């Protein structure tokens, strides 16, 4: 039955540090690379070299401009994938039993052998975390790289989601939110990690660390600093004077 478990032993999820993300899209590419060849149907593209290319991705990076009341605007890169909600609306709407949330670790998955491609789960998700694969006709979503994190055939240091492993800026972290001593729980507590669209009542597991406010103030001592000479010296000074004389 596509009922949600009352509680899960672990709450595996991601912390995404918006203060660090540089918007390189490496997580998007590595996610697609790993998941197109791993769990379930591949992530197809439609018209990839044509006029209107589109395709299935489990992770996408938006970029926002935030304008504070005073001061310059700030650019925030914003990766978005499944938040593995505790109260996942995508699971309960599923008519076939394909969508489920695992009681042991809280990962929300799709059993593609049962999916009929009705798309109702994607409608129920507020975050746009589910995309129908138009070639396979089944719903695709972030699996938290379930085929990496428990995979004993790969070195232990690689047993984390592909997006986390590849992030060159270390903006993504993977861990268990049910354990208050885990790195992700501590980061969330220290940096006031936020839920997305909390008013939807989905209780997302993934948290976002807010970007710092830009330092707009100029040091009060700055006006007293000696101005830096901007007249050239040496050869450039001679050239400057000579050219002026011509």
């Amino acid at each position, binding site marked *: 039955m596509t009922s949600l478990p009352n509680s899960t032993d672990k709450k595996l999820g991601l912390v995404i540090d*918006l203060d660090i993300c540089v918007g390189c899209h490496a997580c998007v590419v590595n996610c697609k690379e790993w998941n197109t060849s791993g769990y379930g149907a591949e992530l197809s593209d439609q018209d990839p070299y044509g006029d209107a290319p589109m395709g*299935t991705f489990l992770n996408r990076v938006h970029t926002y401009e935030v304008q504070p009341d005073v001061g310059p605007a700030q650019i925030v890169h914003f990766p978005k994938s499944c938040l593995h909600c505790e109260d996942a609306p995508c699971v309960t*709407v599923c008519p076939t039993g394909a969508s489920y949330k695992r009681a042991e670790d809280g990962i929300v998955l799709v059993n593609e052998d049962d999916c009929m491609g*009705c798309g109702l789960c994607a409608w129920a998700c507020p*975050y746009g975390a589910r995309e129908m694969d138009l070639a396979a006709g089944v719903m695709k979503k972030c699996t938290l790289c379930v085929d990496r994190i428990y995979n004993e055939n790969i070195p232990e240091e690689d047993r984390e989601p592909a997006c986390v492993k590849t992030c060159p800026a270390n903006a993504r972290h993977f861990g268990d939110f049910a354990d208050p001593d885990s790195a992700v729980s501590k980061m969330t507590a220290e940096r006031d990690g936020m839920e997305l669209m909390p008013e939807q009542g989905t209780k997302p597991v993934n948290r976002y660390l*807010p970007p710092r406010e830009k330092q707009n103030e100029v040091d009060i001592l700055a006006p007293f600093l000696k101005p830096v000479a901007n007249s050239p010296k040496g050869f450039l000074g001679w050239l400057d004077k000579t050219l002026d004389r011509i």
Partner: protein
Amino acid sequence: MHPAPSVIIFTVLSGIGFAMLALLGIGQPEVNGFEAIPYYFVGITLAVIGLLASVFHLKNPKNAIKAFSQFRSSWLSREGVFAVISLVQSTFVLAIKVVFGFHPLLSGGVSLIICSFTIFTTAMIYTQLKTVPRWNQWLTPFVFFLSSYTGAAIILGQVLLGFLLLLMLTVVQIAYWIIGDRAFSKRGHTIETATGLGRLGKAREFEPPHTGQNYLLNEMVYVVGRKHSIKLRTIGMLFLVGLPLPILWFFNVSFAMVVSVFCLHLVGLFICRWLFFAEAEHVVGLYYDKR
């Protein structure tokens, strides 16, 4: 939301079909013996065409049979289960009418209840979605109920019932639009709550995550329908009730009159159902700074 023809045909035709079976179940009109067959045939055919249309919405229909399994948690699954129960039960009522030539009061009443519940489950597929505030309101099931029963009453030649239902449908449809227009902003969903960036200031999309379209934008960020919303609502209401009402009032009941009024009403219903989908804004549009 993308107004897919498959879901529009599904909700309109199967709604009217099941409402016909419900009305026939309570003897509106009472038809017995072989006379009952054409009436039930139209009802069952409409319901089945609608259900078949919904299968065309599926990208992987080979697993459609599994949709009957999750009735304890999923409204879509309940819809499938009750649609089948309604069809089987109504066929049973028809069999009694044909074989014994009388109207079975008890099983007919059961028809009314389960066919009505089937229409309710169809409405709940959309009403349950918190992500689409326009649908997620208590009037949505009433819109589905009244539009289904009005069409059914008209095609069954129940003039007085049809007349009353048309008046009720007018009120509920307009109320649905008025409440629906305010639903999204009333919920307080903004790009700032979606991204959590409100604590820094006012956010807007600077660069989208992809240059082209994707499944999310095609399916849930359908903005074309809102441009002509007022005109389409007016035309829709004209066909839905504006023309049928005076015809029902002034003309004598005849087969040609019933069919023509039903056709006009059906055009209006298709326009209004198209708007039901096309006008519905999904919260995921906020991430794209679009509604």
